[in-house]
């Protein structure tokens, strides 16, 4: 299972990075979204997740890591998800404004054919 988890994260990372390196703002944002999935899973994986032991305490079950998975990475991922969403929102809006103001959705604000070098 560890390998599946690790390789899933790897696939997400690879896909995310490929999109991150594209030239259009929307593609970059898609890439960042995929990367944020990857990082969330990565942090989550750092807690050595197991099946069926959610960290919600039940009566009569000893409160040890033998009975519950590590809750800390989950809390971290929650924070990370929220922050990633906030960042995505800002990035999207900036991309919209950049497109509207600069008449191109190229990340550099100009079509590669239109403008030469600086």
């Amino acid at each position, binding site marked *: 299972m560890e390998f599946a988890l690790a390789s899933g994260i790897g696939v997400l990372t690879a896909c995310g990075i490929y999109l991150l390196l594209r030239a259009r703002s929307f593609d970059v944002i898609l890439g960042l979204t995929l990367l944020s999935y990857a990082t969330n899973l*990565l942090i989550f994986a750092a807690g050595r997740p197991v099946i069926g032991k959610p960290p919600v305490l039940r009566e009569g079950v000893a409160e040890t890591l033998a009975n519950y998975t590590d809750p800390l990475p989950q809390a*971290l991922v929650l924070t*990370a998800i929220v922050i990633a969403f906030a960042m995505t929102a800002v990035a999207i809006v900036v991309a919209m404004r950049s497109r509207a103001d600069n008449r191109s959705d190229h990340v550099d604000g100009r079509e590669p054919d239109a403008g030469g070098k600086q």
Partner: protein
Amino acid sequence: MAHLPVLPVLVPLVAGALMLLVGRRIGPQRAIAWTAMAALLATAALLAREADRGEILVYLLGDWPARLGIALTVDRTSALMVLTTALLAAPCLLYACSGWDRRAPHFHALFQLQLAGLNGAFLTGDLFNLFVFFEVLLIASYGLMLSGGRGPRMRAGLHYVAFNITASTLFLVALGLLYGLTGTLNMAEMSLRVAAADPDDVALIQAASGILLVVFCAKAALLPLYLWLPETYSHAPAAVAALFTVMTKVGVYAVLRVYTLVFGSEAGELAGWAWDWLLPAGIATLVLASLGALASPTLRAQVSWLVIASAATLFIAFSLDTPASVSAGLYYLVQSTFVTAALFLIADMVRRQRGKAGDRLDIAAPLGHKAALGLLLLVAGVAVAGLPPLPGFIGKFALLAAVPDGRVALVWTTVLVTSLLALVAMARSGSQLVWRAEAFPDGAAAPRPPRTAQRIAAGVLLGYLGALMLVSAPVLRYTDAAAAQLLAPAPAADAIRGTAPTKRAPSP
């Protein structure tokens, strides 16, 4: 007083939240902003005084032992950073209050939240919490930079945002791996575990901390990650760009904090590995940034490159890893923050006095209010080029004096040659902007003079430099002690881990 360490975060946070309740009326917003500013200055000063007693203040949030919850840790260095930020913020706020704050929606709220983020990043002793406050300050900086802007600023903003989100993603990757390998997020606790790491884990820990290093260097604009900074800073509104000068310092600070405490002298096999990378990177960055300053088409771009150069100088100072060099670096950090901030403000005033030419260096244009602006530019230029007697010189010579014997040739050559490049660059700009200024054509009215608030703001920043020059001895004594504290992390780590909660049971 017991709650002093948390106040630098709470005061601006509450102020920022209150801004949202008063709506768009500028009067109440300014009142809140200045009240908070005053409170923050007082808090920061008190904090520095407390920290200078030599003990590490540990504030256990939620009354949890440091390794379970989040602990704020105040040593001399973090107190110095908080104080620097507060001192910097006041003139920036003043400058913005001359009109920009009306034009940029939510300026005051974002400004306060940015301060909260900065202070949080300086004070926290927890690695993940550091990430969170990085994000707070970053997202507030997006707002500050872009609110009220358009066109090219949006393009620069898109770069800035995308770049930083990428860096933050890497931050999370590093955090996840480090947590997976050490099982903790508290830096003091982590330092202990890194020191005692299984030999099989060492390479992995180093890989993780390598990614972390990339993140911090990206925020601090170190080679090869510095490229985002010039366009970002030169497109930001003046007051904001001035405030941003402390943001690269956050990255430098984070490197200093993490790579002295967690991977510092106590870290066993990993002790100080990062410095081997940072010295050449810092030197290369310094050279490139100085060339950039020379090549800049505008004054603001030039100042942006100088910001990078100052961060690179800091990296050089810190990577030398001696108490004297770290101390010199801390001193240099403070002064370079003020001087580059002042230059951003001056550049803006110059820009507004030159009509369409703006702050472009390749065009001769009339300059209104030449005498005052010329004087400001002169003082700031002297300071930024590291000429005596201003603190830039003191910091530089303290740094040079602190270079250990083996590195003298390399570091001295770099620092001295780049100082010359900075000098040439500033002389060129001053000559182009002030000296070459023609008279206003007949009939053309001279631009409205810079507002008093703007001039005072720039003057205050330069005044800091004067003050810093005069009290260099006590400041350097403080930074000496701060460096000693940083480079001997064991007592700090013990203090943090050993601090007992008020009511709760301590951690075993």
